Structures are given as structure tokens and as C-alpha cells.
């Protein structure tokens, strides 16, 4: 009887601990998002979205455009490589071959490298070795390497989720490996692949440390891909490190937060669509 009572007590304590922790997590999350929106939205004004950056208006428009350019460039490099790599790993390679093991280990290694180390590597390769100055292209190439493991892993998962019968059906109809992969397997995995690519966009938009010493912090629009330009996150970093522009930093935080939350929502929407398709 005594034993039973103690069990009841410990169960109740565990239950309370679990519920309190969940409540604390939720409270922290809501507070962060709520605080930034609440404090930041009043600071949004038209000047902050002027086309031309001046030291008077501190417009974030050039930074937004730079972010777009950076994202497109990064994906142009990372998406084909990442998707191709995943196709090789899932559709072509034998599961335990040496190459596959090497690729898996290195992909895992890449995904663990801190972003500042990527930034330093990009600086050493593009600025020092290639002799470029701070450039959008150098930044995009650095980021492309950084998001590569993410794209490979999500694409792999999406391809593995495609039922084996699709492939067998396609082979049965006389299609070759390539045709089966490109016209049957990849389209059915499309939304899963997409969700990974969108996640990668989110990382590009939010990245600071890897870009500070590769793409640099010039505030205007770049003349070409080899000139410097700051993305929105770097713009915010610059505002904060100068320490004088709190209202603008609040406003930038709102824009950055909303964009990234939208991007992530889009990604999980795409992922959900895929799991639904699988059940049918």
C-alpha cells in the first residue's frame, strides 16, 4: 500500500513536470515572437522601404533585393547538386558501397560545421585565393556548400518515401533507369524535395556569420555579382553593431521574422502534402 502511494506521488510529480515544461516552452516562444512583432511593427514606415539607401533613411530595400539575389544564386548552385547527389544515393548506388559511406560521412560533417567556419573558409577561398573582393557570388557559393547537406538529406527522405511499386511499374512498361527516375520517381517526390529547398531558403535568409566576411556589408545594391552587398540579416547585424539604430533594427527584425516564419510554414505545408499523397 505504501509502495502504491509513492508511485502515485511520483507519477503526479512527473505529470506536473512535463506539463510545466511544455507551458514554459510555449511561453518563451510566444513571448519572443510577440515581443518582436509588438515592439517592431510601430517602427515600420515608408522610408525604410525606399529604393535608395541613404544614411538618413537606412532603407532595407536594397538589403531585401540582395537577399533575393543571394537566395536565387545559392539555390541555382545547391539545388541541382543536392538533388542529383540524393538521386545517386537512393536510386543508383549500392547501399553499403565505399563511395556511399564516404558521401554520408562527409555530408554529416558538413552539416555540423559552424557557420562562422564556413564564412572563414569562403573568405580564404574566394577573397584570398581567387582575389575577389567581398562579393555576392562568393557569399552565395559559401552558402551553397552550407545548405547542401540539408537539401541532400530532405531529398533522400522524399525519394525513399516513393513506393517501390512506382519504379517496378515504370520498369515493367519498358522505361529505363533514367526515365523512371526523372519522370516517375522525382515527380512523386516533388513536394518533399520542395520542402527541403524551402528550408534551405530559410537558412540563406537568416544567415549572418557566413556572409560577413564573404559577401561583405556594403549597404547599397551591387553593380554586378562580384561586388559586395548585404542581405537583410547582415543589414540587421550592421544596424545593431553600430548601436545607434534601434528603431530600424526593430523594424528589420519584424520583416526578417515574418519572412522566415512564412518560408518555414510553406515548407511544412509542402512536406505535409507529400505525406498525404503517400497514403492515397
Amino acid at each position: 500500500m505504501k509502495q502504491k502511494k509513492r508511485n502515485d506521488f511520483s507519477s503526479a510529480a512527473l505529470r506536473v513536470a512535463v506539463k510545466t515544461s511544455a507551458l514554459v516552452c510555449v511561453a518563451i516562444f510566444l513571448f519572443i515572437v510577440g515581443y518582436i512583432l509588438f515592439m517592431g511593427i510601430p517602427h515600420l514606415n515608408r522610408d525604410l522601404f525606399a529604393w535608395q539607401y541613404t544614411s538618413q533613411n537606412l532603407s532595407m530595400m536594397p538589403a531585401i533585393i540582395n537577399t533575393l539575389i543571394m537566395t536565387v544564386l545559392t539555390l541555382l548552385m545547391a539545388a541541382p547538386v543536392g538533388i542529383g547527389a540524393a538521386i545517386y544515393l537512393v536510386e543508383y548506388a549500392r547501399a553499403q558501397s565505399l563511395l556511399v559511406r564516404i558521401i554520408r560521412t562527409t555530408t554529416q560533417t558538413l552539416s555540423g560545421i559552424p557557420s562562422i567556419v564556413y564564412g572563414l573558409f569562403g573568405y580564404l577561398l574566394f577573397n584570398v585565393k581567387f582575389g575577389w573582393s567581398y562579393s555576392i557570388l562568393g557569399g552565395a557559393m559559401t552558402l551553397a556548400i552550407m545548405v547542401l547537406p540539408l537539401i541532400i538529406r530532405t531529398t533522400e527522405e522524399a525519394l525513399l518515401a516513393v513506393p517501390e511499386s512506382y519504379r517496378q511499374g515504370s520498369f515493367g512498361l519498358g522505361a529505363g533507369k533514367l526515365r523512371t527516375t526523372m519522370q516517375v520517381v522525382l515527380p512523386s517526390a516533388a513536394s518533399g524535395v520542395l520542402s527541403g529547398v524551402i528550408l534551405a531558403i530559410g537558412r540563406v535568409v537568416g544567415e549572418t556569420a557566413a556572409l560577413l566576411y564573404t559577401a561583405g556589408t556594403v549597404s547599397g545594391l551591387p553593380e554586378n555579382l562580384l561586388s559586395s552587398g548585404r542581405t537583410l540579416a547582415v543589414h540587421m547585424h550592421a544596424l545593431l553593431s553600430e548601436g545607434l539604430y534601434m528603431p530600424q533594427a526593430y523594424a528589420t527584425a519584424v520583416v526578417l521574422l515574418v519572412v522566415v516564419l512564412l518560408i518555414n510554414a510553406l515548407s511544412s505545408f509542402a512536406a505535409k502534402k507529400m505525406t498525404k499523397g503517400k497514403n492515397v
Partner: protein
Amino acid sequence: MTKIKEAMMRAVFALLASVSALCVVLICVFLFANGIPAMTKIGVPDFLLGTTWRPGNDIYGIFPMILASIYVSAGAMIIGVPLGILCAVYLAYFCPKKVYRVLKPMTELLSGVPSIVYGFFALVVLVPAMRVLFGAGKSLLTACILLGIMILPTIISVTESALLAAPKTYYEGALALGASHEQSVFRAVLPAAKSGISAAIMLGIGRAIGETTAVAMVVGNQPVVPGSLLQGARTLTTNIVLEMGYAAGLHREALIATAVVLFVLVLLINLSFSLFKRRDQA
């Protein structure tokens, strides 16, 4: 014709797959080639164990930064891991369906919040709060709390999927033996999900030790051995990001060497984790 095309595309895919391996080699070569000479110039023991960082006098000791990096990661674990695991347990085993539909997307969305936004939040909310509570705004403790919050989404989502992947029969078996719901979850399911949970912790450590811009805003950045949690310190990552902008000569090389140390530290953590996992499976 088709045969050639097939073989060609196979080769193309294999080539694309080797890109990631190539990148790792490139990163290693560039970092080590630029960092190791500086280390030998400074003297490996002086560099790793020296407690003074004074680039103006060509004294480069990064021991305070190594220590600070370990402290903030450990602190982040102490705060983030129990909270995250319990929260994941709630999501997986205690949560009503309706609440789940709100909570789950929320944790997913928050994993995407940029670190600069977390850093900003900490700067305007956490730092003043800590100043009022403890008299020290920017400190190791502030960085620990910030990182603890930042790793929460990762810990929660990885732990939750580990819990859900544990065989349902464990839970049912425990219930059938007369254990309560809580006991079944904590004594039967949680141990079964051990390897997934340790993966979550490892990911958290990796994120905490590598975090740069957010930490730079709240940790104070004094390159000294921290005497207490309420003093400022400088981590390996912030050392690089703070000084790289104006460093030249041996100073710059010393910063690259700092990145080498950070890189090796992260590799060691990953390696020990995969060894641990392999032993666990055997």
C-alpha cells in the same frame, strides 16, 4: 544510344554526389593550410593553453575562449535539454490532439528563426533583465540562457520523433504490468528512445558551440578566463567574428587557427557521438 545516355547520367549523378566530399576536403585543406603555420609560429602549447589574448603585443592564447565555449555549451545543455525532453514527452504522450495541432507547427516554425533575431531579442530583453536580477547584463549566464532557448526547437523535434519511433508495445506492455501512464512513458519508452535522444543532445551541442552572432551580442566578449558565471567572456566563434574585420598578418592567421580549433572540436564531438552510437547498437 540509350545505354550511353544511361551510363553518362549515372556518372553525372555520382559526380554530383562527390561534391560534398570534395567540399569537406577543400574546407580542411584551406583551414589547416592557413591555420597550422600560425599555431606552430605561436607555439601549440602557448596557443592552446595560453591565457592571454593580446594581438597588439603578438600574444595569442585562446585558452579562455576554449573554456568559454565549453561553458556556454554546457550551460545551454543544462537549461535546454531537460526542458526540451520534457516538452517532447508532453507532445508525444500527454498532449490533447487539438493542442498538438497548434504546438507542433509552432516548434517547427521556431527552429527557423534566424540567430540574429534571437540575439537581438536577448540584447533588448534578456540583458536588461539579467542586469536587474543579478547586476550583470552581458555574461556567460546570459549566453547560456539564450543558447538554451535557441536549441529548444531542435531538441524537441528530434526527441519527439525518437519517442514516436520507439515500439508502441513497450508502452502497452508497461501499462499491462500495472504501471501508470507516466511510469510507462518514463521507465519504458524514454530508455528505448535513448539513442535518438542522444542524437538530439549532440545536435544541440553542435548548434550551441557553433553559434556566433547571437552569442556575440550577449556574452560580453572580454578575452579573459571567466571567474564566475556572471562575468563576461569570449567564445571561439565570437573571437573570430569580432576581430576578423581588421586583423592582419599573424593576428589574422591566429584567428584562422581559432577556427581550426573550433572545427576540430566539432569533429571530435561528432566522432565521439558516432562511436557511442555504434557501441550502443552492437
